[in-house]
């Protein structure tokens, strides 16, 4: 039954309906594939019984939702009742929530089971999965003729690796500054971050609350549409949840882009990006033209300030959000110190990794007395300008096309300078700061045989436009490369 693990969610769903196979067979195939792929370090917890129970409910007709009989991998940032939820951090070791996040509850309501929890950068802070307390996830991809271990990207690196390796048909991810899109690009799969507020943040471990958004990752654009429909929806428990009906994204998929204008931002042609990536971008423009769209040059003048803006706002919000890890209510506590204050400081010193500490320190500094206006308020003003750039651009176009990341996947341990690591999200971060829906779709392989992604950004609430343009690229790119199994 190994061939079941190569199918898309749409194929699994259709095969279940026509009784070509049972949900139990799907769950067993995936459980076996997960158990055999430990070398990837993609899962932090495996929950085969959960997947089997959901399969049983589907086969017996008790579960009839759109995802009945589909087992999914869940990023370790989502609270899952009774199952370890650690955000890839030592400070949450052993934390078993007594509640379920809204997004995973929605997926369960739709009939999905859970294969396990997926490894990630600690508190979603990282672009390579190397900051995880569980150690890095290894990408199933390798450069041609090489056995050097590569990163699957981050922070949703376990999620990305799981889909690419066929150890989950689809997964949840979260995206604060590119954490769905960059890993999707690195492993040759699709991933979409919807408009801020589409998916409830309730029960997702908070990193930077004004930026955090959940989204799906899958083999195809259609699978992303199916999953996003099940994940999204109004939730009174999240004060920034959008009180809007969930569109029928899957039913309305169409790659006919006649009459649509595709914006090509001139500021995204930056130095140091490999020629192959710019060539793929040009190819992407041709594909969208072939689908009927008209390319137009647009300008997003504040693009170069997006990353520095992000690296003030995100650490500031993180330093505030992560204040809750104090050794009192959950997770790690370091014993053997004298005072309560010493207990806080020792617990946090021990529980947080180097990158998380670095960001808490930056965030604490930019929010501290005397620096707040110079850094934090300034960054929020620039964020307004970045948002306005996009608003003006969308007067001239319907969707924006760019590369997803400035490089293909790099090796584990190859990027040690924090700033160099941050630059990986140069194309992804502006859409995050503006709260816009954005997606990565595989475009092709580079000369070393590694996947490269194309990035589509839509206006507020225009997920359909993003998905449709993604579908047009998917149909023309014909990307069906899969990593050769070595694990």
């Amino acid at each position, binding site marked *: 039954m190994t061939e079941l693990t190569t199918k898309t969610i749409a194929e699994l769903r259709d095969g279940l309906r026509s009784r070509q196979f049972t949900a139990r067979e799907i769950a067993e195939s995936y459980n076996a594939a997960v158990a055999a792929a430990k070398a990837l370090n993609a899962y932090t917890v495996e929950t085969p019984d959960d997947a089997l129970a959901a399969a049983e409910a589907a086969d017996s007709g008790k579960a009839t939702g759109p995802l009945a009989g589909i087992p999914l991998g869940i990023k370790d940032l989502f609270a899952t009742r009774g199952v370890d939820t650690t955000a890839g951090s030592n400070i949450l070791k*052993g*934390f078993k*929530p*007594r509640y379920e996040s809204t997004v995973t509850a929605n997926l369960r309501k739709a009939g999905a089971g859970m294969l396990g929890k997926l490894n990630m950068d600690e508190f979603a802070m990282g672009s390579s999965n190397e900051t995880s307390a569980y150690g890095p996830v290894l990408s199933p991809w390798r450069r041609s003729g090489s056995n050097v271990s590569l990163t699957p990207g981050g922070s949703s690196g376990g999620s990305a690796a799981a889909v690419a390796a066929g150890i989950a048909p689809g997964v949840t991810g979260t995206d604060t500054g590119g954490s769905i899109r960059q890993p999707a690009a690195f492993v040759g799969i699709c991933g979409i971050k919807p*408009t*801020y*507020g589409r998916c409830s943040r309730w029960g997702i471990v908070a990193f930077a609350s*004004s*930026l955090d958004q959940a989204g799906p990752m899958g083999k195809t654009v259609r699978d992303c549409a199916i999953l996003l429909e099940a994940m999204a929806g109004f939730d*009174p428990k999240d*004060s*920034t949840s*959008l*009180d809007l009906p969930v569109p029928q994204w899957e039913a309305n998929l169409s790659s006919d882009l006649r009459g649509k204008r595709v914006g090509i931002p001139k500021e995204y042609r930056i130095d140091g990006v490999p020629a192959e990536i710019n060539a793929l971008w040009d190819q992407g423009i041709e594909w969208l033209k072939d689908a009927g769209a008209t390319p137009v040059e647009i300008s997003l003048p504040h693009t170069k*300030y997006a990353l*520095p*803006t992000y*690296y*003030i706002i995100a650490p500031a919000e993180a*330093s505030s959000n992560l204040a809750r890890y*104090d*050794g*009192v*209510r*959950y*997770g*790690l*506590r370091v014993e053997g*110190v*004298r005072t*309560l204050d*010493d*207990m806080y*400081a020792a617990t*946090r*010193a021990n529980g947080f990794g180097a990158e998380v*500490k*670095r960001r*808490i*320190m*930056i965030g*604490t*500094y930019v929010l*501290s007395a005397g620096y707040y206006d*110079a*850094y934090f*308020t*300034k*960054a*929020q*003003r*620039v*964020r*307004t*300008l970045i*948002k306005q750039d996009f608003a003006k651009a969308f007067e001239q176009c319907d969707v924006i096309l760019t590369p997803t990341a400035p490089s293909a996947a790099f090796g584990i341990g190859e990027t040690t300078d*924090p*700033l160099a690591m941050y630059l990986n999200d140069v194309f992804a971060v502006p859409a995050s700061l503006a*709260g816009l829906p954005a997606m990565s779709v595989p475009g092709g392989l580079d000369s070393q045989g590694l996947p490269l992604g194309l990035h589509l950004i839509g206006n*507020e609430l225009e997920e359909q436009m993003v998905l449709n343009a993604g579908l047009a690229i998917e149909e023309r790119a014909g990307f069906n490369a899969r990593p050769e199994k070595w694990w």
Partner: protein
Amino acid sequence: MSVTNEQVRHIAKLARIAMSDEEIERLAPELNNILGWVEQLGEVNTDGVEPLTAVIDQKLRLRDDVVNDGNIRDDVLANAPDAQHGFFAVPKVIE
């Protein structure tokens, strides 16, 4: 602006993260590198620009003023490193 070791020590105290002198010395140049880089925002003219507060414009909702949660003490305490008599327990605060 650049931060001194002394300032890094102060920030670590504010953030409640215990740090050795070696860690402070390692972190200070890293933080200066990042802060030096974000200071390029100084080039941007933001006169008369409001700081962004809500990325997607929406009205804050008010819910009905009724009790809709509670009576879950044991759930709340279930993950505590130390819970006693229905409370979170911490090291002694008053001598």
